[in-house]
């Protein structure tokens, strides 16, 4: 029993992990077939995982409705959304557009609801970049000051009008042949110190990720199994 509960999962993890890592080095068709097969398996398993999620969402909200908890009517809207999509989806055979190019009811609902909802949430980000900048770009320390100054330079430099004032108004184009317009300054900041720091972080992240992966494959990191027997 302990084998089934603890060792077998570790063994599965080791075998699947090794196969998917080693496959990178084997060029044969067999190897790429295995890789493709595994990724298909993963997609199928993920489908059941989603099913697990959907059932639990259904349970959470149906409980709310049953018990008439405050705001239960909003939970009913979740079911309304699901029902609308599922009914129109099956009705349209899962296609957003029919083969002759006409848009299906499913595609219509997608365009009328999901598209505006997604892009509105994205647009709200526009407001949030402003308020977050106001609240957090304070020169409370030297480091914070560096962050603030860089951000302000980039913000200004990205506006064509600032560059117009800088280049045409002030007449600054270059220093001894090194281009020095606002856009060049922004380009340097993005392409040089910013890129260097990103690269440094990327190296660290990669090493951490590889170490973690190795620990998982070899069963050293097993937090995901939870406790118990």
């Amino acid at each position, binding site marked *: 029993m302990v084998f089934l509960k603890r060792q077998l999962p570790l063994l599965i993890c080791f075998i699947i992990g090794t196969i998917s890592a080693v496959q990178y080095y084997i*060029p044969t*068709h067999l190897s*790429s077939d295995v890789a493709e097969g595994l990724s298909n398996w993963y997609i199928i398993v993920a489908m059941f995982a989603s099913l697990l*999620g959907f059932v*639990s969402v259904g349970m959470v909200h149906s409980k709310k409705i049953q018990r008439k908890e405050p705001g239960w009517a909003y939970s009913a809207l979740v079911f309304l959304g699901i029902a609308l999509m599922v009914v129109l989806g099956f009705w349209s055979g899962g296609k957003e557009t029919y083969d002759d190019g006409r848009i299906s009811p499913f595609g219509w609902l997608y365009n009328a609801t999901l598209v505006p909802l997604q892009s509105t949430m994205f647009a709200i980000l526009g407001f949030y970049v402003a308020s977050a900048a106001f*609240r957090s770009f304070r020169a409370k320390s030297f480091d914070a000051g560096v962050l603030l100054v860089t951000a302000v330079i980039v913000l200004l430099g990205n506006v064509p009008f600032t560059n117009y004032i800088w280049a045409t108004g002030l007449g600054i184009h270059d220093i001894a042949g090194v281009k020095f317009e606002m856009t060049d300054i922004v380009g340097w900041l993005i392409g040089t110190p910013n890129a260097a720091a990103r690269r440094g972080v*990327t*190296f660290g992240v990669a090493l951490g990720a590889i170490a*973690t992966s190795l620990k998982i494959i070899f069963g050293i990191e097993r937090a995901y199994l939870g406790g118990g027997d």
Partner: protein
Amino acid sequence: MIRAVAIVLLATTAAAAQAPADFKVYDKPGDAGGAIIAEWKGLPDEGKPMAEGGVEYVVSLGLSKDGPWTEIERFPGTLHRKNEAPDLFGFSKSNDSEHFIELEGLVPPPGGPWLGTGRSLPTWVKLEVKSPAGAAVAGPLMAEAAPDWWSWNKSNVLLFILFFGGATFWLISKARRDPNIFVRRIPGLDAMEEAIGRATEMGRPILYLNGLNGMDSISTIASVSILGQVSKRVAAYDSQIMVPCYDAVVLSVCQEVMREGYTAAGRPDKYREQDAWFITQEQFSYVASVDGLMIREKPAACLYMGYYYAESLLLAETGGSTGAIQIAGTDSITQLPFFIACCDYTLIGEELYAASAYLSREPLQLGSLRSQDAGKIFIIATLLIGALTAAAGFPFVKHLMATF
């Protein structure tokens, strides 16, 4: 005058009639089968335009030594040089003057095994050299295409994994013997304890998010191990935690990990399965829900651990507006700036992976932190040597880092 031209023509004919040296045909190494390679040394005048005595190469295939021949490609002497394919020929200087051509799509023998596992029909390759003045032939030579079982040109990556993996396991076993390992402070993690304490005092919950990646992502795995440590402390302080999930597998793993945390803290009775739940699997509807949750429940602390996309700011800015202590940890390079701006503490990149080692202080985990440091020293050294040798005109370290 006319005689002079004739002499020049004769001279070029003599030069072009010479067949290329070292004509070879062989199975393409490190491939899935079905391709062979032909290579030969270039001729001295091949770089010139045709009219000035340059050459044209014509490669033909046949299934027997005597043809019939199918012309595959015809190209001037300036093309198909070996230096275009360092994955096959490396970086040798002589590649600049040698040619190759890859011949793909070879057919298996009738009734024989499929090319993915078997060899192709014996295939003959003939190379003709043409110039305005004359022609010469090399070959025909025969080769069979076969699948290979190892990509040798990816060995550099493999070597690094072996060394790094070896170092990791060695340092872990060392840490087991001597668990007294120095780890530098990570302020965000020290603040976590404080945040949990504050939540208890205020009688408000803690919100913990695992990011938007699935359980197959290293960031999520790190996040889940941190959740284990956090739930231990939450149980000890008798505080409350909310874990809305983006992925159902992550949800299940979170429930396991939290149960384990509560048990380890001696409070298995306090564990409630409904503290972690699934919302939905679409980025912005998930965020819309979590934002609503934050405004309504007003958590005392928001912990964002894992991988995030554009929604990072939507979460952190809303959390900030409710006055919660916010601690983020992500290895998402593009979203770090937003967490830095909005959160009180942020674990940057690798610090996310270090967090569970830091919190648990388990020797196993600490040992792997040391191996990561060793990896960094190795990278620093390689870069230094690479830059210095490159400046001195020896790019071999850079060539060692080539990926194919």
